[in-house]
């Protein structure tokens, strides 16, 4: 985790990803954005990259293994868990069942429901990034 490291987005909807990227840029963040549309590729990236990632935003409903399974995989893989990357669910659907599972079966740093319009989404992304920017970070890779 590094404040200047890439922001990883796992999102299967290209439009949603584009909107997210536009918002991050418009907020003035220079961090590189790394995008995967499925969790298998995201795991492969996390396992092999030398990047110190700032934060992970993951959708819940994804093709193949979903966001919850993705997070469980990170938690159960010591070298991925060791990277201590803040993990936030950012999802259109926010079923109570998924929220309960996210908090009780794994360790998440937040679960947010996607905003309805550009300004709402911008407000959310701004708050989440500011929070993790203000937070003290570990010295890990």
């Amino acid at each position: 985790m590094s404040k200047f490291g890439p922001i990883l987005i796992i999102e299967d909807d290209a439009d949603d990803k584009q909107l997210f990227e536009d918002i991050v840029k418009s907020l003035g963040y220079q961090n590189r954005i790394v995008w995967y549309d499925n969790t298998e590729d995201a795991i492969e990236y996390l396992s092999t990259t030398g990047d110190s990632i700032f934060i992970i935003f993951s959708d819940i409903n994804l093709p193949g293994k979903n966001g919850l399974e993705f997070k469980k995989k990170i938690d159960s893989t010591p070298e991925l868990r060791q990277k201590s990357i803040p993990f936030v669910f950012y999802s259109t659907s926010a079923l109570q069942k998924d929220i309960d599972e996210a908090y009780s079966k794994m360790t998440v740093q937040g679960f947010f429901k996607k905003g309805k319009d550009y300004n709402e989404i911008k407000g959310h992304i701004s708050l989440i990034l500011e929070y993790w920017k203000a937070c003290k970070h570990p010295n890990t890779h």
Partner: protein
Amino acid sequence: MSKTGPILIIEDDKEDKEILEDVLRDIGVKNRIIWMENTHNAYEFLKSATEAMFIIFCDINLPGKNGLELKKVIDDRPELRKKSIPFIFYSTSANQKDVNEAYSKMTIQGFFQKGSNYEDMKKVIRLILDYWTLCKHPNLL
């Protein structure tokens, strides 16, 4: 975890606790504030509490077991872990060793260094509360 539930402050310095309380009231927080000055009492309180808490602010350096040890105990006790209360370290000291340990050996939702003046503190506390208010909460207790 409940947005309207009490806020638990674990802090051995009475003045620091009063400042944090002032900041919370100044921001307009209506939640009940519960203060414990050591981790033993905080642990006993959490075990017996029937109310869903909103958030825990915990200092690092505390008499007896320190903040890091308290968090480990919570993680190890299924009935406490299941309460899924966001756990934030809020400490005067933020040495890198403690920050690294907090992220790698346990599951935390943030690690913030106390601001050096009232306005800085207010900014950080507001950010923390806004974040966890926007966040979707589990319904497990």
